[in-house]
């Protein structure tokens, strides 16, 4: 055995040396390219969601190169795999910035991975585009948030359920996975519902662990809570793999969307791909994009995606659109600044406006969040969403929630002279604190 191991180590080290040589060779060839870092998990639990984002970034970079690149140079993607391991995200981010000298990084999915890379980005002064809907309560100079803040997803979704169209819901179950995004979102929602006159006994909050698969007790508790003679709805911040068994149990226990609708914030086309959606028709999701949106931009995007991934069945989803918007914004800002120097690009980003896929324009705001329309969709038998409600205009991302006592006085404005992510309007000082 020992002999074998020695042999294996030898082969391995030879391989490493060879790889190193290749890497340095490609680094030399790539001197007149602009490098773009892609920081998405390609293995581990989050690979299910993040692999698609890596692919869409490669597609966008390919397309930009076909158009002649950027500032006369070709773009080059540098893909790393942080393997769903939060500390590894920080290490890989450092590697991308210091070793590969990337001009910007597109990446992260979970909030904890974002929090883990924040210090790296501010220390090494680079740019991160974060494409996923999140809990807010954050605004960093080096980060551009292209996903939805709570007021671009959660609040409009609850408003819809309270409206006559949505069924005039009076009783609420807030069901979530036990981590930072659901906990903060539910805190905001609870405060919001109470401000709308919903009594505390009509709100039930429940959390389950990551990857939870036995939903019998929770679903029967929802059924029980829903039989109090008032219209009840579930607002679900259940994340990732736990959704499939959750919906299967709902279907099996016969909870119909007409009676108790479930409004989800983390269930998109990709998650539904592993499900028979016939028993789920009518359950809802709130996003800023659906694959079923009928616009020429979206049709082209889907066709390009199918061609790139060579599979006509692959779906598109909201975080993909966020990367589409983020990447185009970055390209525009680089052209505006005439350089890829992160400092200059960060200043050029604010005010940049690019077309989104739902037939309008999204603009980068001074708080590094973007404007988006909010769509509410119902699940259809074919695994797609049908839009049942759309905000009349664009909604501006609000990073510091107005419904939380700690953050209601804070604003963020990264333009000079304020240049502050957490300015307290009451005290007139930069450096207030949020709930996190």
């Amino acid at each position, binding site marked *: *055995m020992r002999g074998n191991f020695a042999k294996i180590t030898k082969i391995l080290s030879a391989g490493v040396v060879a790889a190193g040589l290749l890497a340095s060779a490609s680094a030399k060839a790539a001197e007149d390219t602009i490098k773009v870092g892609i920081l998405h998990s390609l*293995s581990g639990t989050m690979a299910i969601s993040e692999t698609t984002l890596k692919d869409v970034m490669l597609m966008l970079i390919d397309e930009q190169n076909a158009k002649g690149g950027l500032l006369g140079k070709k773009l080059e993607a540098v893909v790393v795999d942080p393997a769903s391991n939060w500390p590894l995200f920080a290490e890989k981010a450092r590697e991308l910035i210091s070793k590969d000298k990337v001009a910007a990084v597109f990446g992260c999915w979970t909030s904890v991975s974002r929090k883990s890379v924040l210090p790296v980005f501010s220390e090494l002064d680079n740019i991160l585009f974060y494409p996923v809907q999140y809990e807010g309560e954050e605004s960093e100079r080096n980060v551009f948030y292209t996903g939805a803040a709570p007021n671009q997803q959660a609040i409009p979704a609850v408003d819809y359920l309270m409206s006559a169209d949505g069924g005039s819901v009076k009783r609420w179950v807030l069901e979530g996975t036990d981590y930072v995004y659901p906990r903060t979102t539910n805190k905001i929602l609870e405060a919001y519902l109470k401000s709308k006159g919903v009594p505390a006994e009509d709100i039930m909050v429940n959390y389950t662990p990551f990857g939870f*698969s*036995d939903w019998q007790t929770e679903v029967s508790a929802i059924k029980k809570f829903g039989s109090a003679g008032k219209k009840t709805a579930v607002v679900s911040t259940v994340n990732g793999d736990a959704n499939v*068994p959750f919906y299967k149990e709902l279907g*099996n226990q016969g909870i119909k969307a007409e009676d108790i609708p479930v409004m989800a914030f983390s269930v998109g086309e990709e998650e539904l791909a592993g*499900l*028979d959606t016939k028993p789920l028709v009518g359950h809802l999701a709130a996003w800023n994009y659906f694959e079923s949106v009928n616009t020429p931009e979206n049709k082209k995007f889907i066709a390009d995606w199918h061609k790139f991934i060579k599979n006509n069945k692959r779906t598109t989803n909201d975080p993909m659109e966020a990367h589409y918007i983020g990447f185009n914004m970055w390209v525009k800002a680089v052209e505006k600044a005439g350089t890829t120097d992160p400092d200059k690009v960060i200043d050029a980003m604010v005010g940049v406006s690019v077309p989104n896929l739902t037939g309008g324009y999204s603009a980068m705001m001074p708080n590094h969040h973007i404007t988006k329309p909010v769509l509410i969709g119902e699940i259809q038998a074919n695994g797609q969403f049908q839009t049942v409600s759309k905000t009349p205009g664009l909604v501006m991302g609000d990073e510091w929630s107005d419904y939380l006592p700690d953050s209601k006085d804070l604003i963020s404005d990264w333009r000079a002279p304020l240049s502050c992510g957490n300015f307290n309007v009451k005290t007139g000082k930069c450096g207030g604190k949020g709930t996190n």
Partner: protein
Amino acid sequence: MKIFRAIGLTLLFLLTTLSSSGAAEADLRAIIAKFATAADFSETGVIVRELTATGDPAVERPLAALAEGNLYIRAADSMVFVGKEASDSIQLFDPLSGEAAGEASADDLTQIGVNNTLRRTIRDALGTLTLGSKDPTVRIAAADTMFKTPDAANIEPLDAAIASETVASVKALLEQARGASILVSDKPDADKLAAIALIGARGDRNAVSLLTSVEANASGAVKEAATAAIASINSTLAFWDAGQNIWYGISLGSVLLLAAIGLAITFGVMGVINMAHGEMVMLGAYTTFVVQQVIRTSFPGLFDWSLVIALPLAFLVAALVGLAIERGIIRFLYGRPLETLLATWGVSLILQQAVRTIFGPTNQEVGNPSWMSGSFDIGQLAITWNRLWILVFALLVFGVLLYVMKRTPWGLQMRAVTANRRMAASMGIKTPWVDALTFALGSGIAGIAGVALSQIDNVSPNLGRGYIIDSFMVVVFGGVGNLWGTLVGAFSLGIVNKFLEPYAGAVLGKIVVLVLIILFIQKRPRGMFALKGRAVEA
């Protein structure tokens, strides 16, 4: 609107024997044609109510189609059709007569959108319209809908339906629906009290739901009666709740048992710390997926048999992979638990990534056969078919495994090798092959567990991760090396977990269970059913 409906329903019951005249049909067509001009859901809803108000049973077809999203407008002439999706076009049918009306491509048609509120309106409307159906199950569904959405206007049609009803069980449901409608009407209190007694006897959650809203709006004797009825129903329901927790616990236990039983062989009997056990479960689930894919494309008629077909295949796939792992890696590492742990952990990563590369990182859809979908009621206890079958299946697997271990020559050799390897070898048993086959058996059983778990969990490369910790917990808690221990361990952990969950929540519940196990292992390091004898010390 209520007046419209009342008039419509009275008309319906006057006219049921008469066929609708040509003029009435033309009226219906005129109303249906309005769907083409409806701008939003509320306008569509107005048209739906108008159709219902005609009380003509012929409106059932277009309304049912609308509820399912199968009503289309042809762009060329704004005509409304019922559509059925064919391979690359949509077949059109007349909304009233149901006669075929050619086909069109999806681009030339606009689907009429529905949302939950509309679906509910349509369901309520169809409830009243189908009250006179010949099929008792349709009448039961109608009675159920009318119970859930009581309306004073329903009393009259329900009276008529009760008078002509012949099936006793349906009649009882209709009377309850009538009672519900009386409670929301302005009938005298005496009628309402009778209705409360009737509904109180029903004793389920829907009754509580209705009575709670009555209690909130009523006063005097009616309010008191409602309060009393709710209290009495709730006390019965509390009893059923306990039964429900036990059932959920047993069901969770059966899942734990299935996941752990293969490990009870590889870890329990052979002592191999097999971190790739979860991946064997995953391979079984993926085999089910592949089998279903082949059936879907080539033999759609066999879909209900897909799981039965997948079982032997999953066993074979996982057993072969297990055999390869044992021959290729583990046999060099016997007696070195730490290295085994690391090596099998590595294998588990390799298997996960291999599956991810071949099938992609996203979840794969594994369908439930019809006999595993839905639920049935025992009293106030809803039991889902898939959970029940998984329980039966887990016990079956356990029984077969027990038989193999205790009653076959192979089982005897397996136990002999575990008890004393050198002695067994001197008796002429080929210990390396017994090791290999035992490991293959454990892996194969994990594979068939994967077939069952594909019915309730995600089929993704991470499937196995979720079960590995629980499996080890069950085997260690039950007593290493003892199959009965695994059985008792799985069910007691399941039941304790499910009893804690409603009070402590899922997160805290799990922590409490883990703490309890740690304390238990401190007290009894060998688990509940420890093996006795010298072999244990070896």
